[in-house]
């Protein structure tokens, strides 16, 4: 057995040895140990290096608040996790762990040179050190920051574990299973209510686990605990261990993460690693206890310096002496008991040093009985020892004057700066805090949520007080649930009550500028940094926090916030409540991405919407691209074609014969009702009254600000029925906007709106042979120029399927869009494909669609427009029903800034002088020789190489462009400046002759 394990102490099972590794060396712990308790049992304090200075660090706490002892844990491939707190990770045979932030080894670290360059990394170093000289940025600063950034190393393999997610509704949720929480559960149990108790630890009991000396209602504390937990379980209370309440959200929703497998030797099959619980509780009892504060003095971070309460926990819960010759420095009574427990377990306490001049007589007497040296009215000014503390320097303080120091030899230092109520979850509720001058801490006040806070979490001390408070607070909750009851009472023997005073950084005889007195261990923030931040002008605690990074590490300042506040408010010359506390935010402890993602990973990360024709595209070698949530065929490469080659072939085939395109993703909205035409008149810019049934029109939708929101072809099927199409990505937005106006501005209109996007499969046929191919399939209409001209629509039959047939074109060729009930889409596609073979039918994807439409200057809303473009900017005044009294956007278009046409950016075509292809998004200038920074007058919105035109074309927004036809503009690129001529947007067939079906075409 290891040299620091104490026989007969602790709750671990020393008869079951557990071997694990730390930095490649095998250590033996006991079943029930954490990595930290097992290493301490082996005399190992050095567990890591700090983030900024790479200073050697050991565990200073025994729970989830630990800032220093962060390790990587490994369980085979993919199961590596950095930044695990060694104080929380339970050991199991074969567990591999590693220390962090060290190079090349934990004991000999090169980065520790940062420690010597201390002056370089003081408060605000992020903002100052790396500013100058500028040439250092690429070669020196950035590599340095990248190497130093982040704690630990990110895993690189896929996580093989699964993560689950569940909802839970209960009457009472109790957070924390210490004495307050258990007493609350006892009070609420057996009343027919659903009661849930959660605790982040492996075992329930909280402080009772560290205080076996106590008796509760005459029973030894641990016996009481055992029977109490059994009773609660029997009474139907749901007890959840290893479950952390990470956040308190609106209306009593609490997020909880349950760790299911990290402590197990063998992973059970089909068990998730973690489970995220979303709990909706009628009432919540917060019983999270209090966290011990470190004392702030030079060298308070040396391995072996530890919180006194944590040392007591290591001894009583894990049976581990954290040292054999402890020295104690404290401002609170509680540390005295830790010292006594260690002395009684065989350690030789070197001294109890108290910053207070007056200490309770009974404590002094107990120290005397044990022969322990006591120094009251003293401060600690330094520690020494290379990788482990070997001595503590203490000095008397009289009337504010620090006297001569003396060194006390020791192998560990127990410190206590008092206790801070754990107010994290309470703060998540937007609960108000009130400053308690006597306790020098914030206490919970009012909260808008249905919750109470009990026990040490509201500043009470001692098991008896806390038990009775838990019971009393539970009665308030029960009354709110109409289940009023009396609170049970508890009496506790050997209870350890106490009090203390709050210190800022401890008084010292050293130069304050040289003191490395740490406040935030994880971010390496010292008291000096905080004072420097105030001297440099930071006034708000939020600014001090960000400038120094105090409290911004993964522990969220659990130990540093109050010490930081006390020091900052002293430097500011203000009282703490005037300075205020920084905001606590979820999660309470670091939480895995897996827990948040739950089932939403891999194929389930996001919905992939597929059309009925998608399987055909996949079988025919399509390359896909995501468009919104849709997956669309991008292009169909043949025999090793590049994308450019495939697109070029698809374009040519469509222009020369016939192309087939899956347009099913187009948004479709059915607008129906007696007032449908009036509704369309008000929503869209175009006039609709005179559009005859059986005809279509290109519709333009604006916002009331006058800017283009969406567009699409709209068919009038009958007097009271419109088939509206929208952009693929805009469908939901357009329907929402339509519903908004219909429901809230024009509720008098008798109109129904229905999303029909997924009800129709839409197949587009385009090309000179489109009519010829389609005509034999169509019953009910003849596809001639006379009987079914461009911009017609009809309900008919296509290949035996009921269909809505549109004669429309997004390519400039003869075009049809055949809508059939969605399930028939694939069958129709295959029939057309087969019949189309005689014409060399070619399937094309979205890229070809983009090129073909750009050749004709058809805009794509969201690509050629960006929410600040009006119809007039696009030279689309023809789409506006100027005679209409109103439509959405009409008044907006009359705004003086939009009327100032010459000063607006216009959509125009660009042809480069050297026939090079422009970059989409490239900025445009009028004068390439002007001094930097140049005046930018627009940007390229669309750019394609086109086989049809034999040259690249581009669309661009250019200031005043419509009045600058033929002018040259310049596109400065990193390597050269490209010149281009402004043209119209229609590059091909401006007279639209290709749209016409000639005799014999059908």
């Amino acid at each position, binding site marked *: 057995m290891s040299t620091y394990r104490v026989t007969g102490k602790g709750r671990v099972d020393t008869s079951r040895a557990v071997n694990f590794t730390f930095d490649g060396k095998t250590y033996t712990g006991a079943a029930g140990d954490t990595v930290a308790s097992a290493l301490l049992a082996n005399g190992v304090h050095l567990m890591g290096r700090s983030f900024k200075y790479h200073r050697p660090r050991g565990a200073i706490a025994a729970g989830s608040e630990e800032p220093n002892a962060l390790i990587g844990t490994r369980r085979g491939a993919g199961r590596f996790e950095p930044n695990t707190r060694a104080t929380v990770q339970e050991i199991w045979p074969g567990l591999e762990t590693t220390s962090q932030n060290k190079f090349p080894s934990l004991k000999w670290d090169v980065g520790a040179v940062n420690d010597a360059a201390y002056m370089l990394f003081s408060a605000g170093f992020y903002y100052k050190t790396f500013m100058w000289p500028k040439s250092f940025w690429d070669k020196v600063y950035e590599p340095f920051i990248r190497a130093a950034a982040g704690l630990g190393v990110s895993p690189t393999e896929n996580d093989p574990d699964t993560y689950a997610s569940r909802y839970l509704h209960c009457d009472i949720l109790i957070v924390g299973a210490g004495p307050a929480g258990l007493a609350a559960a006892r009070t609420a149990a057996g009343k027919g209510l659903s009661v849930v108790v959660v605790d982040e630890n492996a075992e329930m009991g909280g402080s009772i686990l560290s205080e076996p000396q106590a008796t509760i209602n005459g029973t030894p504390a641990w016996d009481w605990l055992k029977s109490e937990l059994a009773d609660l379980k029997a009474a139907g209370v749901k007890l959840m261990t290893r479950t952390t309440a990470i956040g308190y959200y609106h209306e009593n929703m609490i997020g909880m993460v349950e760790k299911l497998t990290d402590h197990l030797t063998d992973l059970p099959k089909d068990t998730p690693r973690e489970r995220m619980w979303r709990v909706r509780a009628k009432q919540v009892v917060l019983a999270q206890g209090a966290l011990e504060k470190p004392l702030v003095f030079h060298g308070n971070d040396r391995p072996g310096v530890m919180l006194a309460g944590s040392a007591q926990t290591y001894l009583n819960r894990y049976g581990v002496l954290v040292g054999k010759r402890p020295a104690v420095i404290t401002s609170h009574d509680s540390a005295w008991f830790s010292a006594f427990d260690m002395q009684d377990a065989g350690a030789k306490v070197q001294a109890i040093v108290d910053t207070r001049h007056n200490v309770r007589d009974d404590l002094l007497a107990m120290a005397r009985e044990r022969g322990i040296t006591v120094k009251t009215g003293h401060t600690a000014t330094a520690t020494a020892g290379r990788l482990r503390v070997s001595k503590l320097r203490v000095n008397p303080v009289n009337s504010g004057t620090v006297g001569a120091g003396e060194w006390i030899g020791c192998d560990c230092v127990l410190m206590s700066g008092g206790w801070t109520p754990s107010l994290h979850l309470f703060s998540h509720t937007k609960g108000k805090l009130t400053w308690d001058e006597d306790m020098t801490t914030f206490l919970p006040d009012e909260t808008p949520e249905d919750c109470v806070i009990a026990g040490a979490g509201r500043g009470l001390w001692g098991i008896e007080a806390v038990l009775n408070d838990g019971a009393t607070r539970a009665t308030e909750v029960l009354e709110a649930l109409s289940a009023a009851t009396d609170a049970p009472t508890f009496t506790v023997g050997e209870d350890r009550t106490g009090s203390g005073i709050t210190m800022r950084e401890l008084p010292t005889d050293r130069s304050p500028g040289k003191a490395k007195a740490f406040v935030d261990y994880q971010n390496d923030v010292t008291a000096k940094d905080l004072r420097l931040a105030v001297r440099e002008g930071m006034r708000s605690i939020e600014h001090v926090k960000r400038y120094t990074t105090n409290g911004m590490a993964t522990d969220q300042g659990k130990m540093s916030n109050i010490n930081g506040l006390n020091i900052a408010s002293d430097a500011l010359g203000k009282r703490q409540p005037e300075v205020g506390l920084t905001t606590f935010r979820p999660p309470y402890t670091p939480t895995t991405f897996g827990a948040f993602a739950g089932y939403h990973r891999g194929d389930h990360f996001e919905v992939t919407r597929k059309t009925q024709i998608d399987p055909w595209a996949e079988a025919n070698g399509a390359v896909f691209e995501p468009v919104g949530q849709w997956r669309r065929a991008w292009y169909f490469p043949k025999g090793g074609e590049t994308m450019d080659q495939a697109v070029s072939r698809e374009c040519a085939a469509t222009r020369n014969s016939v192309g087939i395109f899956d347009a099913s993703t187009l948004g479709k909205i059915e607008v129906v009702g007696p007032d449908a035409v009036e509704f369309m008149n008000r929503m869209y810019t175009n006039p609709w009254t005179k559009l005859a049934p059986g005809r279509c029109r290109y519709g333009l939708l604006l916002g009331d600000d006058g800017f283009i929101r969406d567009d699409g072809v709209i068919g009038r099927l009958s007097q009271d029925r419109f088939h509206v199409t929208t952009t693929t990505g805009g469908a939901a937005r357009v329907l929402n906007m339509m519903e*908004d106006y219909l429901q809230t501005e024009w509720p008098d209109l008798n109109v129904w709106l229905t999303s029909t996007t997924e009800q129709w499969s839409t197949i587009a046929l385009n090309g000179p042979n489109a009519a010829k191919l389609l005509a034999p399939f169509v019953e009910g209409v003849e596809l001639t120029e006379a009987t079914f001209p461009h911009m017609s629509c009809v309900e008919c039959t296509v290949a035996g399927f009921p269909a809505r047939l549109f004669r429309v074109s997004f390519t400039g060729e003869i075009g049809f869009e055949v809508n059939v009930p969605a399930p028939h889409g694939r069958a129709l596609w295959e029939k057309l494909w087969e019949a189309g073979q005689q014409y060399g039918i070619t399937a094309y994807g979205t890229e070809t669609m983009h090129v073909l439409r750009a050749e004709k200057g058809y805009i794509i809303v969201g690509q050629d427009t960006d929410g600040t473009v009006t119809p007039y900017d696009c030279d689309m005044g023809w789409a506006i029903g100027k005679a209409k009294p109103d439509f959405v956007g*009409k008044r907006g278009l009359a705004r003086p800034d939009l009327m100032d046409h010459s000063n607006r950016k216009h959509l125009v075509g660009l042809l480069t002088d050297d026939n090079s292809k422009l970059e989409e998004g490239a900025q445009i200038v009028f004068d390439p020789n002007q001094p930097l920074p140049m005046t930018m007058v627009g940007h390229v919105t669309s750019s394609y190489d086109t086989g049809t035109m034999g040259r690249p074309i581009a669309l661009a927004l250019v200031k005043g462009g419509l009045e600058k036809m033929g002018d040259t503009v310049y596109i400065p690129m990193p390597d050269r400046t490209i010149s281009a001529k402004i043209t119209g947007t229609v590059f091909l067939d401006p007279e639209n002759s290709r749209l016409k079906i000639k005799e014999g075409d059908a």
Partner: protein
Amino acid sequence: MLLIHCPYCEETLPEAEFAYAGQAHVIRPENPSGETDEQWEEFLFIRENPKGPHYERWRHIHGCGRFFNALRDTVSDRFYTTYKAGEPRPDLSDFLGDDA
């Protein structure tokens, strides 16, 4: 996550079913073209941004689809009440008790 009462469904349901839709009781003028630039600016752009009670619109987008109004406190995020579109603005003092 907030719980929101839909006045059409008459059910209290999780926030995830709803979409926020801006300030309430902003009425689009009968004849926008008759508005001065200042009046149109007021309608189009100017919104309250109160710290405290706020009349606002929500849509039960993953439910009945209806837009409705709410009186909500922007500090506590608490809903005082929700009511149907077109109904008059409820009086805040009805919800603040004696403090109002």
